[in-house]
């Protein structure tokens, strides 16, 4: 929806401490200025039966009136090569070449290797034209002419492509030949593909240099009211492009097609896209191994660690066979950082209490909350609330309901309920998608970032799949309960945990995690285990946590990477051979498949999801053990039959105790939910043979388990095994058995004495 007027924005840092500066990047349409107010966020969910939306205004220097503008977002991933000496448009004859695997050859003109500015009509480009055919075009400042192949490129087939421009003859020879093996392309080499093309044509002008950066996967243009933009964005992979002086003949091209690096003085540039890899990941730099060292730099994170034209299927990781991993994947809708101008810059005051905050902007009859988290300079409480910001990133701007409503509704067993946020996202593709979505060409979204407006970071946001809050807005129900539980608490985030490890948690007696802490880096996993081994205590008030392996670059905490592999509840699946994180070099997928099932750390792990109704728990014999019966003081045999999320405390997603997956042997199995519908099937990663009857009415493994176990040095983990638990806490103003039970556990966990 046009949603005009609107105000939206993001904070450049999600987690800040007193004394640190945070910048708010704001864009608006139809609103010239806004009143800014710092607010402490207490609760988001407006469901009947709960406290509703709660915020507290805080006096601060952030308050005031601010002028707003509409800010531009450059989407699309591409590589930029600065060329200050103008070497990349040689004066005479030259040849441009690359390996290419196009996913949307028919989408319109796309740049592969270009130094072209459409606005000034200067420069040249090797790319794909409106007919989906390989094309070489050039401009002299007046006109643009092109020579195109006669056969369209087939999608997802590797080709060697080249254009040899002969300045003396004024001709261009185009060369296109598939380089298909049994592994690298969508189709098999057993087919006779109608794919090759050799075309010679006249270029009735002399190319004039564009005087701009060379680009891989796009070309320059101007946008009215903004200025320079990159357009002609390419979808697919490019591998080892280069530029040679002279119009190369067939024999020389054949050598390049065989994969030989260009030799001799004729090389102007050769970007060895497989160079510069390390065991700990691949950055944005694309190395030019030619004589001038004109290295490229990725914009909006072109995806690295992808299979190249010569991938042979034996090695499944760039670390094993880097030379077969020269593919760089480009997407025209990628967005990592909107790079907006700062609208507000503010230093967190020394006396601001740790918590969840937002810059609230009101103007033109509309309002926006830009959320951020304030952690303490040093720990101020025994209790910490760990906001699962990595998981917020994973779901950031989830467009499931726009892209594939059938999948969503079948999974949830709930009718779809769209809100204005969903329409707003639909009107703003430039704000990007979540790791539950696909790029325009069908590739799964593996990168997500908070340097863009994110609907799910708004406190009142509700998920269209079920109409209930999810992630951040759901976690605010735990925050609301903490605000009135009688214990001081600090707020910390996954970002801090990934950066600082166990030292972040060490000062706290108890750490509470959120409703759905699903995405975990290895540093976060290690930090949690180390904290528990040193006597720390965790209350895991959620489910399907500690599940996906994710990675962050150390210096770019706003951007997270995940690859969804061949098991786990996955919205997409990485292509064969593309299972490893470019950010860290680790194998991604689910932690269970790396030997770290969540049961080993939390006692429970993912067992089912369904989103029609939530159910209560019933106690089990361990709950009457005198060592742990304090947990159930004031709680009946059956509990948790009300809540803001689908009417109960056990629902949405469920975790289960399982000794086979590493639940500690002495774990107390305190209670379990039951009565879930067949819209809660047992999860796929636990199913080796499919058989009927795996839904909640026929499979005992569909349940939420409540567990407690002790770790070393007096540490402990209490788990509820349900996402809906947190949203049951505020029911009836907190006067309910879920809140009572949670209070019993927290009251004991903050004390020095043993928990059992």
């Amino acid at each position, binding site marked *: *929806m*046009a949603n005009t007027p609107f105000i939206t924005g993001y904070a450049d840092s999600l987690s800040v401490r007193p004394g640190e500066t945070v910048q708010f990047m704001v864009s608006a349409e139809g609103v010239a200025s806004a009143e800014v107010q710092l607010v402490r966020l207490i609760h988001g969910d*407006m*469901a*009947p039966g709960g406290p509703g939306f709660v915020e507290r205004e805080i006096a601060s220097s952030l308050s005031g009136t601010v002028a707003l503008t509409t800010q531009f977002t450059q989407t699309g991933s591409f590589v930029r090569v600065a060329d200050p000496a103008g070497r990349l448009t040689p004066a005479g004859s030259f040849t441009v070449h690359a390996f290419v695997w196009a996913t949307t050859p028919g989408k319109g003109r796309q740049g592969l290797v270009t130094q072209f500015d459409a606005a000034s009509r200067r420069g040249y480009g090797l790319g794909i034209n409106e007919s989906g055919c390989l094309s070489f075009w050039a401009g002299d400042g007046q006109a643009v002419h092109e020579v195109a192949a006669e056969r369209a490129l087939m999608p997802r087939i590797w080709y060697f492509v080249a254009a040899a421009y002969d300045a003396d003859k004024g001709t261009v020879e185009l060369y296109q030949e598939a380089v298909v093996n049994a592994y690298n392309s969508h189709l098999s080499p057993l087919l006779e593909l109608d794919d090759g093309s050799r075309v010679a044509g006249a270029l009735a002008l002399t190319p004039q240099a564009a005087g701009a950066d060379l680009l891989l996967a796009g070309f320059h243009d101007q946008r009215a009211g903004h200025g320079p933009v990159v357009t002609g964005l390419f979808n697919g992979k490019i591998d080892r492009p280069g530029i040679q002086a002279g119009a190369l003949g067939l024999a020389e091209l054949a050598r390049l097609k065989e994969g030989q690096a260009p030799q001799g003085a004729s090389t102007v540039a050769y970007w060895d896209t497989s160079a510069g890899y390390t065991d700990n990941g691949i950055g944005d730099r694309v190395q030019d191994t030619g004589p001038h060292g004109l290295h490229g730099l990725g914009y909006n994170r072109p995806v690295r660690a992808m299979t190249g034209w010569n991938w042979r299927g034996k090695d499944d990781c760039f670390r094993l066979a880097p030379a077969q991993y020269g593919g760089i994947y480009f997407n025209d809708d990628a967005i990592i950082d909107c790079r907006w101008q700062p609208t507000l810059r503010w230093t967190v005051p020394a006396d601001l209490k740790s918590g969840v905050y937002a810059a609230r902007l009101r103007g033109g009859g509309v309002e926006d909350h830009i959320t951020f988290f304030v952690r303490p300079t040093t720990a101020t409480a025994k209790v910490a609330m760990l906001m699962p910001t990595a998981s917020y990133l994973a779901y950031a701007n989830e467009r499931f*309901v*726009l892209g594939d*409503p*059938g999948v969503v*509704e*079948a999974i949830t*067993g*709930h*009718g*779809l*309920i*769209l*809100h*204005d946020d*969903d*329409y707003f996202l*639909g*009107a703003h*593709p430039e704000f990007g998608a979540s790791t539950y979505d696909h790029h325009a060409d069908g590739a799964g979204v593996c990168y997500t970032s908070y340097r863009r407006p994110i609907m799910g970071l708004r406190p*009142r946001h*509700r998920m*269209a799949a079920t*109409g209930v809050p999810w992630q951040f807005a759901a976690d605010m129900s735990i925050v609301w309960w903490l605000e009135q539980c009688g214990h001081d608490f600090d707020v910390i985030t996954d970002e801090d945990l990934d950066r600082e490890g166990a030292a972040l948690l060490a000062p706290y007696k108890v750490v509470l995690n959120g409703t759905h802490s699903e995405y975990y880096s290895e540093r976060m996993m290690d930090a949690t285990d180390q904290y528990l081994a040193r006597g720390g205590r965790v209350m895991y008030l959620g489910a399907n946590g500690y599940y996906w392996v994710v990675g962050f670059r150390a210096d770019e905490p706003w951007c997270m990477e995940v690859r969804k592999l061949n098991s786990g509840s996955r919205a997409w699946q990485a292509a064969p051979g593309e299972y490893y994180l470019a950010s860290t070099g680790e194998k991604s997928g689910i932690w269970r498949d790396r030997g770290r099932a969540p049961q080993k750390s939390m006692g429970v792990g993912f067992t089912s999801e369904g989103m*029609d*109704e939530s159910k209560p728990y019933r106690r089990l014999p361990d709950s009457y053990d005198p060592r742990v019966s304090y947990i159930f003081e004031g709680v009946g045999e059956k509990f948790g039959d009300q809540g803001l999320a*689908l009417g109960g405390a056990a629902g949405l997603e469920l975790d289960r105790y399982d000794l086979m997956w590493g639940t500690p042997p002495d774990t107390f199995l305190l209670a379990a939910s039951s009565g879930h*519908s*067949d*819209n809660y099937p047992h999860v796929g990663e636990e199913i080796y043979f499919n058989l009927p009857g795996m839904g*909640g*009415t026929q499979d005992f493994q569909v349940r939420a388990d409540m567990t407690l176990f002790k770790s070393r040095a007096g540490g402990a983990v209490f788990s509820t095994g349900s996402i809906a638990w947190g949203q049951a806490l505020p029911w009836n103003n907190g006067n309910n058995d879920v809140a009572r039970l949670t209070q019993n556990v927290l009251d004991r966990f903050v004390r020095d004495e043993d928990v059992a």
Partner: protein
Amino acid sequence: MTNTSLPADRQLLVYARFNEELRAEMRPLITEDLIEEHRRRPLGQHSDTLMRLLNMFRRAPVYALYSRTPCREFQVIRLPVTEGSNPTPIDDVVYTDQNEALHAVFLRNLEDLMRSGGAK
């Protein structure tokens, strides 16, 4: 020789035939009792027949709800929601009860199903 009257993805023909047959099988199972069962409780575990019917609707949803005021106002919309579109409820009826609204979607689906030949 390519037969251009057929879809490039021939599986679409099987999908269409499967849907025809499934919908034909479901039509005789629709009763007043079944509709009442859904009205009383649109979410959760239902009778086997109603579960089968809902599974079919849910895998290819045609309708959804738009909630202008979260938790308080619901209107029926038609899917898919195209990028950049505004909410366009199919009528002026505003439900204040979510279950009533979900049932309205169900009735729309039934109407399509029972229409002569069934909606595809």
